[in-house]
């Protein structure tokens, strides 16, 4: 097995539905040259898989991490094995190769998440990585909207009804991408969320079009109360960004926007609505109120000893 850099075109052609929108050429182009894409070759010419990551430098240290706003490293690989034992062997071999490759990057700190369908991270554990579960919530959109709404927390339903009663209206793509960008920078800036302005601008202004994303805006009396931005592929719609105008003090705006996003995703033919990570306590509770299923995915973490010791105090849940 050979692991070596490939370009966006090679990766996205092969990854297809496995990685969906996060493996698409347009999405990966958001990150330009800062993205490293690695192909997994069975032999010199046969590409069977791939993944990606970003390498950054800070205080003289190299950090290896996910591209901002991307939930995982886009790992996919194709196995021809049929016997269970051979499938297990092949998966173990691929993951061992990836682990060896990443360790060879000699970064001071590595934090990388894998897609939820990648379960076998044992080679990382054996190589002294910390393998930590993270979580997202997913709503099954193959059910009727009535059933989906029936699974909402009653408090959530009430607050949505209240927002509707207060004549909060929701419309699609009603503001320009630049206005949407300005809104998110403003609303996310008032929370603890990290904002990666360059990537966010690229996503909204260069990536986003009618075939891969939508935004919904909530308004009352011509005042913008909140917005969500979702991206989608054939199977899954991801809730990427959401924000509200806190000064407007209208309850239920975000709840209503999420409900409408779920409806829109269903209309688009997606079978899953993914809240794209729910690790913050407050955010998790909000997402949980929509009755989704908790889905674990796994992150591998490794740091050089002095950094690890510092992180054992500052980020005990990771190290």
């Amino acid at each position, binding site marked *: 097995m050979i692991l070596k850099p490939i370009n966006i075109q090679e990766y996205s052609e092969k990854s297809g539905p496995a990685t969906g929108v996060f493996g698409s050429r347009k999405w990966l182009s958001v990150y330009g040259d800062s993205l490293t894409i690695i192909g997994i070759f069975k032999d010199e010419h046969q590409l069977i898989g791939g993944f990606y990551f970003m390498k950054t430098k800070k205080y003289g240290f190299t950090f290896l991490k996910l591209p901002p706003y991307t939930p995982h490293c886009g790992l996919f690989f194709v196995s021809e094995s049929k*016997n*269970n*034992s*051979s499938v*297990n*062997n092949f*998966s*173990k071999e691929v993951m061992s190769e990836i682990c060896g490759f990443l360790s060879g990057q000699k970064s001071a700190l590595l934090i990388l998440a894998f897609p939820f369908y990648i*379960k*076998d*991270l*044992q080679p990382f*554990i*054996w190589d002294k990585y*910390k*393998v*930590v*579960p993270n*979580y997202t919530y997913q709503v099954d959109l193959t059910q009727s909207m009535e059933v989906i709404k*029936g*699974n*909402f*927390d009653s408090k*959530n339903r009430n607050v949505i009804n209240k927002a509707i009663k207060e004549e909060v209206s929701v419309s699609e793509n009603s503001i320009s991408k630049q206005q949407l960008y300005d809104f998110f920078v403003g609303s996310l800036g008032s929370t603890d969320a990290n904002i990666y302005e360059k990537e966010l601008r690229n996503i909204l202004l260069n990536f986003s079009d009618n075939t891969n994303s939508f935004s919904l805006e909530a308004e009352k009396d011509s005042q913008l109360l909140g917005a969500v931005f979702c991206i989608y592929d054939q199977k899954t719609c991801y809730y990427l960004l959401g924000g509200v105008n806190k000064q407007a003090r209208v309850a239920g705006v975000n709840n209503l926007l999420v409900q409408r996003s779920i409806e829109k995703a269903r209309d688009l033919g997606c079978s899953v609505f993914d809240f794209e990570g729910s*690790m913050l*306590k407050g955010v*998790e509770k909000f997402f*949980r*109120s*929509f*009755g*989704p*299923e*908790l889905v*674990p995915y*796994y992150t591998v973490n490794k740091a050089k*000893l002095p950094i*690890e*010791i510092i992180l*054992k*105090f500052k980020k*005990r*849940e*990771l*190290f």
Partner: protein
Amino acid sequence: MKIESVDKNSGVYSKLQAFIEKHGLVFNGAAWVNNYPERQITQCAILNNNNDVIGCFFYFSFKKSVFKFIITPPFSPDIGLFYVNPSESVVGKNSFNKEVVQQLAQYFDDLNVHYININLPKEVTDTQPFTWNKFLSRNRYSYLLALKGTEEDLWNNLASEKRKSINKAIKDGLVITETSDPELAYSLIIQSLSRNFIAKNLSIIKNILASLAAKTNTFSFVAYQDKLPVGATFCVVTKSKAVYIFGGFNFENKHHGAGVSCMWQSILKAKALGLEYFDFEGSMNPAIERYFREFGGELTPYFNVQKISPFLNILLKIKRHNPL
């Protein structure tokens, strides 16, 4: 909801035993828990607001130097966390799961010990409250073999090396039989554990194997070559699966197919008992993992949560010492 530790004098003890009995919880049951020294094992009940038992778990404590440790009881797959979720709606179920795990994280936090390291059952996938309480939640793995197919399906899913080993054992005249002799199983198992430097808690192993004589919830297979015992496996039977606890072989008279054949017979026995799965119960050692992998089970993650006082954590890191 609250969590209470329960001893034999506690008012909740009989209610807890009735709950364990009702739900057929083998690892929480007295027969299993009594394998451990009473002062080191703690059984807990999860009580609802009416003081009814709605769940339970157990853990093992010990002291080393000035440090206090809490771990999964040795040779138990996990802390046996089980609870009845009364909610019917999806959101209610999720919220109840979250509340139970939050209570559990808080309970262990409040014990104020230097080292906590516990395995959660495979069914418990939500460890977020532990993370929020600054525990480190980590993946661990086991192989779970679904038994619903035919014997032929199971055979075809074995790696070819495993099939060859079993065929060679047959060709060489190895005889695989079920045993209820604890001493026989112990003699083989202890040899293997000693070779892997994990032969600790010998009295617990002896107690666990003693259950073979009673033939309740356990079975063991021994391979004989020329009437000499050369390999053994020992499994515990729960409601839906057989759990492989340990195995061993005779180092001086080893046969390549002895352990594999005992495991194969254990799998067939689990199937004959109508169980859904055969659980290889943790497969984290690379050599052992490979051995288990070739039986064709599905790699199944479960979660381990740990919290270590920063000072002890650095001490263990520097000394590269695993206290387990």
